[in-house]
């Protein structure tokens, strides 16, 4: 399948009006239209499985209705694809959560290591291969047409400050996890630190020149020539750091709320800050691949903002018969859907810079999870929801498969981005080729 972008016409009804005029000056500023339409990939992770009965649409095909958990995504129904019946069939060492997380995007077994999982599992280590986001990143970075400053950016929300196979889904290669950045200020520094530095420098140039003039009078005429050369260079620096000089940015950095600490109760605010940063760097074409990881496998966020004080992971172990727990888990998962919706809304409301349609038309969001269902720890029916026009898939459908290895979906993502590799991850699982989603 060639990655011809399907121009799906998004239904934008119901979008908050405030989201529309997001970016000033578009598209007057900025770069020429890309040689071929841009494609972006965002992989969103939320943990601990879902509640299948309130997640999967009852009917397959185009005529499906969204259940409670996916209801927030209703405005984007026409560019939505639900994929039921995809299984993470990778086995080997480590417990289900570890393999669910670290094999999710790599499709390959864990290396030996000393991380002891639950039950009687054998200790295991990092994933034994590259993850699909990094594979596509490398592919895009290999061509000048699609190369960007960062290639990929890994965002986190409430990911704990520890490194183990439960906490990492993105891998640059075997045993090489890529850590997500949970602190939006740190991400801001990475993206825009240089701009802020220039502003600081601007603020000291006048005093520097004044001081130099003073110093110049104190030295001999021969030495003065040296300081005059120095002065010329300062003036050059002044020109280079002047407002707007050298700024190829289409959009300035977003204004982040100050002082939001990286802690549980701030997760809703942190989530929006990270999404705002992500959309902003898409506008500036700093990357075409991003991941957004909410907590981690076995994540135990306490969603006090939903008036749920239990830890997420503990709740997810409660049996189906515990209606109160099930209701909380539905609300938790619905909250995650709302965050995916916010991302989709922002992309849909932003015109594609130098291109047609909205940024969502050029972006594929993949929302996924390490388990199918929390209380059974099954790696079958992993909740995969695809959203947006970025990979040229035929959207607006609910599809159902029968325990298809998820490697075939990862392979389909690669092909959707024009990267026509024959297998991905464990090759045995790829014999039937990429999942046909076009």
């Amino acid at each position, binding site marked *: 399948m060639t990655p011809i972008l399907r121009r799906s016409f998004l239904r934008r009804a119901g979008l908050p009006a405030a989201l529309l005029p997001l970016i000033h000056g578009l598209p007057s500023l900025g770069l020429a239209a890309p040689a071929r339409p841009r494609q972006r990939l965002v992989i969103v992770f939320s943990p601990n499985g879902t509640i299948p009965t309130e997640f999967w649409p009852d009917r397959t095909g185009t005529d499906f209705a969204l259940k409670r958990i996916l209801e927030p995504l209703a405005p984007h129904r026409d560019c939505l694809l639900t994929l039921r019946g995809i299984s993470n069939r990778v086995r080997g*060492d480590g417990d289900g959560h570890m393999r669910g997380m670290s094999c999710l995007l790599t499709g390959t077994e864990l*290396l*030996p*290591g*000393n*991380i*002891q999982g639950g039950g009687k599992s*054998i*200790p*295991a*280590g*990092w994933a034994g291969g590259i993850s699909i986001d990094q594979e596509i990143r490398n592919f895009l970075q290999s061509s000048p047409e699609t190369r960007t400053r960062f290639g990929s950016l890994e965002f986190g929300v409430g990911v704990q*400050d*520890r*490194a*183990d*196979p439960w906490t990492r889904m993105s891998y640059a290669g*075997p*045993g090489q996890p890529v850590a997500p950045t949970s602190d939006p200020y740190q991400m801001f520094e990475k993206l825009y*630190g240089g701009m802020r*530095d220039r502003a*600081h*420098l601007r*603020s*000291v140039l006048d*005093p*520097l020149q004044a*001081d*130099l003039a003073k*110093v110049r009078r*104190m*030295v001999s005429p*021969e*030495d003065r020539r*040296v*300081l005059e*050369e*120095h002065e010329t*260079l*300062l003036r*050059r*620096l002044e020109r280079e750091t002047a407002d707007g000089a050298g700024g190829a940015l289409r959009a300035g950095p977003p204004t982040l709320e100050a002082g939001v600490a990286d802690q549980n109760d701030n997760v809703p605010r942190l989530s929006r800050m990270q999404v705002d940063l992500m959309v902003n760097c898409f506008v500036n074409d700093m990357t075409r691949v991003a991941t957004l990881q909410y907590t981690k496998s076995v994540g135990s966020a306490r969603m006090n903002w939903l008036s749920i004080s239990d830890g997420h992971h503990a709740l997810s172990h409660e049996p189906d018969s515990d209606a109160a727990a099930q209701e909380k888990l539905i609300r938790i998962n619905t909250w995650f859907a709302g965050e995916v919706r916010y991302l989709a809304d922002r992309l849909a409301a932003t015109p594609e810079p130098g291109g047609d349609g909205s940024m969502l038309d050029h972006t594929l969001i993949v929302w996924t999870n390490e388990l199918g269902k929390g209380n059974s720890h099954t790696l079958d029916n992993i909740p995969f929801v695809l959203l947006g026009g970025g990979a040229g898939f035929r959207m607006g459908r609910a599809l159902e498969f029968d325990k298809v290895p998820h490697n075939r979906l990862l392979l389909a993502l690669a092909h959707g981005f024009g990267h026509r590799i024959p297998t991905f991850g464990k090759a045995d699982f790829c014999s039937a080729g990429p999942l046909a989603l076009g």
Partner: protein
Amino acid sequence: MAPTPPRLLPALSLLLGAALWSAGCQRDPAAALAADAGAALYRAKCADCHGAKGEGVEGKYGSPLTGDWSLARLTRYTALNMPDDAPETLSPAEAQAVSAYIFDAFYSPAAQARLNPPRRELQHLTNTQYAISVADLLAGLAPPAAPPEASAPAAGGLAAVYFGSAQRGRFDAAKAAHRGVDPGVDFEFNPGSPALARAGAAEFSVQWRGSLLAEETGDHEFTVRTPNTVRFWINAEPGVPADASLDVNVSNPTRPDHRVTVRLLAGRRYPIAIDYWALPEKPGAPPPAIALRWKPPHGTERPVPARLLSPAPARPTLVVATRFPPDDGSHGYERGLSVSAAWDEATTRAAFEVAAHVGRRVDRLDGTRAGDAGRAGRIEAFAARFLAGAFRRPLTAEEREAQVAAVFRAAPDPETGLRRVVLFALKSPRFLYPDLPSPEAPGSRVAARLALSLWDSVPDAALAAAAAGGGLVTPEQVAAQATRMLGDPRARAKLRGFFEHWLQLRFVESLPPDPAHFPGFTPELAEDLRTSLRLFLDDIAWDGSGDFRELLRAGHVFANARVAGYYGWPAPSGDGFARVATSPGERSGVLTHPYLLAALSHPRSTSPILRGVFLTRGIVGRSLRSPQVAVAFNDAEFAPGMSMREKVEKLTRTENCQGCHAVINPLGFSLEWYDATGRFRREDEGRPVDAASDYFADDGQAVRLGGARDVAEFALAHAPSLEAFIEQLFHHLVKQPAIAHGPGVLAGLRDSWIASGHDLRQLMVRIATLAALHGLEPPPPAAP
């Protein structure tokens, strides 16, 4: 430069030998008497083309008439070739008179020095000075360190604590099973091994703490090899997980090598720490093991040697990673003369780098905490101290207000204020040009010069206090400070930098000899030789006599088992390096150190030419010009069985070459006792080594040289050789021309040096003192 048309060179060959380098001061008195006649002749016959003062005439002879030929050579040339339109028309007396006039009036180096006196030039920090100044600037502002534990042994390894339990990320003090000093970290914890016995349990953990001395400036690659869980800190705050240079939480037996590269400055100690946990692994996994290895600049990957490790703690140093364009080396030593856009951009990037470092650590630097009352004020005070440190003097009230207080008032938060002050400080000409006049605080300029000469750094607290208290006025006061400063490791680093410059080792990346031709001459041996040379130099300069004569004459070397084995020296006791004696007459100090001899060799043979050029410039102290004709040495062109000496003599026998090779070759041949790897030999290509030849000194005297020791004795007895060495050391320390400090400066330093017993340390003190006070002597007291 003198006019030297190649077609005339055959004529010049007549002058070879005694006359070639004869000095101007020894000319015939009759010539001086004829000076007036010479001037008249010049006006009549030469000025048309060469200009009234030898400045040259555009379209005729455009270049200034200056050069470094001796008067005799100039006279001979003039007699044969001048005037250009009527050569050989001057009588011998006329040629003599006009040449003497030219020589004295403007041609000779002495005349040029008189006409265009060299001066101390305004220059910016060299790259080395920049890096060290920034590191020390921050270190000097840190709160006083806790004194090191009195019981900590001085050197030889890292403090180790073994725990009989393994809890990921933690150590259980109650399970501490063994405390001691490990000479290195290279263990396999096999069943029954002593290492495992120290832990006393199958699941265990170990904590290593201490410091590491870096011997070279540059990128050091560290490898922690373990199939287990480890954290590693190098030049980072030990034990702070967020600062870990390596954090291997998840073991990975399939990729046990974990690498990190850090830039370190030579001559400093850096904190180094390892936290290690042997946790349960998959059944059948390899036994627990850990090794710390490194690859320093010029080095091979190998275990970190125990002699560089110490259980004593150290503090992290900010080492600026920004790369600067190379310093101006056009005067034969590095100077901050080139003010280029690339340099300016580097100073900007480096200022950002430091500002970011300081901004991130704002609270750690001064022990403040977010939310503390008075935090903003303390950060502002810290910024003011930073700026004063960068200016190398106390701030004026006006500066404190405009460059600090106002900046903090305008900034949205104290961190931003601090970053802006740091940017201002490091972009300021007062920091970048360290010898600007400072009428605000006269003593500060003396302190700044001393710190640069001896440390390449900013003044420390003691120097600043001396400057502020009027304690840097008399030569005695300044010399006392300089003497104190020699006790600091930075002075060692500076002198080591000089040795590398003097011995031309700075750019040696690998030694030429081919291991296939010289079995055993491995990269590891080459690295050991570099260490051996460094230990030899440091030992004499700092721990031993400090006597330059010993540097050139010593018969001992420093060797480890590998070095001793290759060179046939007595094996040292112990694992490391030790001083060993060589056979009487085998070695003559640094001149015959194998590292130097190998660096000045070809892959399969010696190079008397490379060695001779080094001895000419570095030891005998004569200048050489670039070869007139480029001739490649091609071993295949010579008949088999010829000795290297015969090949070189054949190659350089033309008169063209002999101009310089008459000097170079005898010196180079004197080292033919040593093969390309520096091994002592008696035969070359099956023929007895012939190292003896007559060397003609610049005063024309013939000296019989039979080996390196003869070269050493000649240089030590020969004033110009000693002065050339002093001048090189002066340039390396001060970065200004020695001659700009007065016409007799080198002779004066030479006399006092000889009187001190050729003491290198005293020479450093004298040079630093002289340069620090030059031009800054207090005005004489006003007449009543």
